[in-house]
């Protein structure tokens, strides 16, 4: 039981905190670096989709190339 106690405590803490709203751990005013254009996930869609095409034509693999589903919430 003694060994289980920390585990039970951890689980209980997790359950309690899971109900609380999640506090953003990177505040909006701390996102200056993420908002820099050099940090854009896909800065040039015309170019990245073209390169994806070049590779897919010559290789067997495809998909999950990213660019989509992005978002750093830094706008």
């Amino acid at each position, binding site marked *: 039981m003694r060994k289980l106690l920390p585990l039970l405590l951890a689980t209980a803490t997790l359950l309690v905190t899971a109900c609380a709203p999640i506090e953003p751990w*990177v505040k909006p005013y701390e996102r200056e670096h993420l908002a820099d254009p050099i940090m854009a996930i896909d800065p040039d*869609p015309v170019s*990245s989709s073209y390169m994806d095409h070049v*590779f897919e*034509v010559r290789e*067997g*693999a495809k998909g999950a190339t990213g660019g989509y*589903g992005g978002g750093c*919430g830094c706008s």
Partner: protein
Amino acid sequence: MKTVVWQRIAALALLLGTAAVHAGVLAEDRADVMYHRYQGGGITVQGPSVLVRKKFGESFAATANYYVDNISSASIDVVVSGASRYAERREQKSLAVEYLRGKTTYSASFVNSEENDYKADTYSLSVSQDMFGDLTTVSMGYSYGKDHIGSSVDPTFADGIERRNYRVGLTQVLTRNLLASLNFEAVTEQGYLQNPYRFIRFVNGPGSYALGQEVAPRTRTSNAGSVRLKYYLPWRAALDGQYRFYTDTWGINAHTAGLEYTQPLWNRWVFTGSYRYYTQNGTNFFMDLFPRPGYQNFMTRDKENSPLQTHTIGLGASYEFPLGFASSFIKRGTANLHVNHLMVNYSQFRNLTNFPPGTAEPGTEPLYSLSANVIQFFVSFWY
């Protein structure tokens, strides 16, 4: 035949890449005009691409893209089949619309691609959602594609492909300097999945070979998962690392790893350098030389289905030019040059260019490799 690949990429780029990067706020209005050129392995492909994106109020946006490939090909496949250099043109038009409501972005797109022996239409839907104080963006997407395939050498040939793509993505702010992106995509394809212009070869008597039609399964399902990390370095530079694993029901397993470094300099310039490594094994039914015709149900000698490795080195430069009098209607403008050098090494596919049947013991010809240069020059405007 290149349409197959391009359709899906165009749909993805239009539908998701341009819009969802900053879900919660629609991306800025922009226009891109590009000239692209690929040269290598006996093939030259070049043409323009024009993309225009415009917001209507704060909730709606539309993106249109017009893209052309002018192809001149005497690739190893063309040469070995005995055909002569050919030229063709492919045109692609696409339109995407987005609607932002609260923290949710809904998107729909249509892509049409046409060349003389291939026509393809793709319809896509997606939704992305910002959550947890905008630290997390989750997205889902679905595409349906229908291809109509013909043959320039056999006017009676007609077949098709039906394709469905399922995508989920997650982008996460990890620290004030680090972004992570996870993506997963499953693709199911049904129909004519081989290439009417590619041939297998088989042993045809002692010391010689002959060519025959390849036969591929009529279904293929693939799964790909990728992870990407982008880190802001203290001296204002960015480091981007990516890895992707791919597996499919034809037996291909592939790994892709990439690293890119971005460095702004002298106020108006941004330079990038990148390296990408790719490796795959071959499909279960690939052989460079089959022992006899009809050796097994499915047979291919498509080099894209063979074991191969690709190394790619890329350099890019972007210059933000002064706007002068245009600053009243343009926010920002850049001129960009990207150059990539590809080296593809095939570990089973052999180079038969100088070895027609009867000139060498089949299976002893040198292995094939190709190198190619890819150039993109484009001008971008944000307004």
